[in-house]
């Protein structure tokens, strides 16, 4: 197991049209895309959804291989969904039957639909994280959630927590890797045995990791205080999010497109 292969929230810097779109619009459009996927009904709406995804991938200049890589980890989930859909969708047109199990045309169709949905959902969201830096993401979330400040939701604090978490993920992964190698060198075994044994082998890894995370948190808080951090009040930003007219046009065009697909999907196209 190599922890440094984890690509959580990985960002590929670039200067494509997708990279440049205001991150707030990107987040909203990704969410709307997911909704549209679930409103899609017939072959037509699925194909349009897939076409949109392909166009966005092409525009973002992210390689299809990278997108495929983001889908790979949920392979098992896709498989389970497929099996459940095949066997549990009620249908008339029986193709194969054995004991209580039967495969129907309806089941196969529903499985294909579900798989397509999940793949497009994950690929679509991965385009969001691939083309948006963690800073932009957390800034955009802060900005999108800012109306909630009226009901006393600590929006700035939430976004600061997220960005610090993202900042420390690589540091903690590196540290976990180091502790693991140190323990492997002393004969610890993380790879064999059943699930329980493996989880148990993780405990001596997690304890030092937690202790050091708390020490880091202490030191970071001190360093932030020394740099005059005082919450969100009166704080300015180096990069302030500012949507250009072009961003508005793109947003509303895509919004209309999604609405049209959803309506078509509801009518079975």
């Amino acid at each position, binding site marked *: 197991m190599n922890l440094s292969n984890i690509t959580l929230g990985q960002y590929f*810097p670039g200067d494509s049209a997708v990279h440049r779109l205001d991150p707030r619009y990107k987040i909203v459009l990704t969410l709307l895309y997911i909704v549209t996927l679930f409103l899609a009904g017939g072959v037509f709406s699925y194909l349009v959804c897939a076409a949109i995804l392909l166009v966005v991938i092409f525009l973002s200049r992210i390689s299809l291989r990278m997108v495929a890589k983001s889908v790979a980890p949920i392979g098992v989930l896709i498989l389970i969904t497929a099996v459940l859909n095949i066997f549990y969708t009620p249908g008339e047109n029986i193709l194969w039957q054995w004991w209580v199990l039967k495969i129907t045309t309806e089941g196969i169709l529903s499985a294909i639909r579900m798989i397509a949905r999940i793949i497009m959902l994950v690929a679509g969201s991965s385009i969001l994280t691939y083309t948006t*830096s*963690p*800073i932009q993401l957390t800034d955009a979330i802060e900005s999108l959630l800012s109306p909630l400040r009226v009901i006393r939701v600590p929006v700035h604090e939430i976004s600061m927590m997220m*960005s*610090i978490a*993202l*900042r420390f993920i*690589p*540091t903690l992964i*590196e540290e976990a890797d180091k502790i693991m190698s140190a323990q492997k060198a002393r004969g610890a075994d993380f790879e064999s045995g059943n699930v329980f044994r493996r989880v148990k082998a993780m405990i001596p890894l997690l304890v030092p990791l937690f202790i050091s995370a708390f*020490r*880091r948190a202490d*030191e*970071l808080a*001190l*360093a*932030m*205080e*020394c*740099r*005059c*951090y*005082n919450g969100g009040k*009166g*704080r*300015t*930003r*180096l*990069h*302030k999010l500012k949507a250009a007219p072009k961003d508005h046009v793109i947003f509303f065009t895509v919004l209309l497109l999604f609405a049209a697909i959803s309506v078509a999907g509801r009518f079975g196209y």
Partner: protein
Amino acid sequence: MDTILRCEHAAFHYPDTDGAVLHDLSLSIERGSFTAVLGHNGSGKSTLAKLFNAILLPDSGKVYVDGMDTSDEAHLFDIRRRIGMVFQNPDNQIVSSVVEEDVAFAAENLGVPPDEIRRRVDDALATVGMTEFVRHAPHLLSGGQKQRIAIAGVIAMEPDCIVLDEPTAMLDPAGRRDVMQTLHRLRNELGITVVLITHHMDEALQADRVVVISDGRIVLDGAPGDVFTHCDTLASYSLSAPETVLLLSALQDAGLDVPLTAMTPEACADAIAAALSE
């Protein structure tokens, strides 16, 4: 003399512990000077540093920053802005996952307008020689580079003084050299007062003034040329003089006529060569 930092009879103990960490400590730091603070582990150096920017307040006595009393809440952010602080572990003081955002952090907290933040970030990165890394991820940098980013983040506050608590303790020799060069540049080009807490004698040698602390008291204070000639006194505070001084002192004991004040390796070599050729 224009003092930037002044401790007057400051005493301090941590809550829920017995025994004071600092006892009746008085110290003035001159504006534009480069002071090294030495002391064995647990002597109270980090505690003293935290008194300087109002992270901790003295139990009795006073600490003044540019004439402002650190116990006066109204001056808190003004004091923290003037006295920048850099710590030992570079990983635990970098806030952001992009270099420029991290350098901007303090200026953002101070409510500096975006254009001005941009200028300060670019200037600070140029000063520490890290301009080309402006959009890099800090976790991919070397220890010395990370520490220079931390220093840049502090200079973006445009402080009068920068206090560094063992900034080179986790660095390799190349990283240490880069950080020391950066500190000299801050002092010489920007006129920033430097207070460097360190365990490395060769770094203390580069200062104008060395303050030795033992058990919360100042025990030696003077130019490196003075302080380091007291080999035995230093040893009694669990510190050792720079190796050049130890060598010169051993040569003196052996009867060679060399001055203990030749402390840099070059001066030491010259002094020995001169004494031998006589």
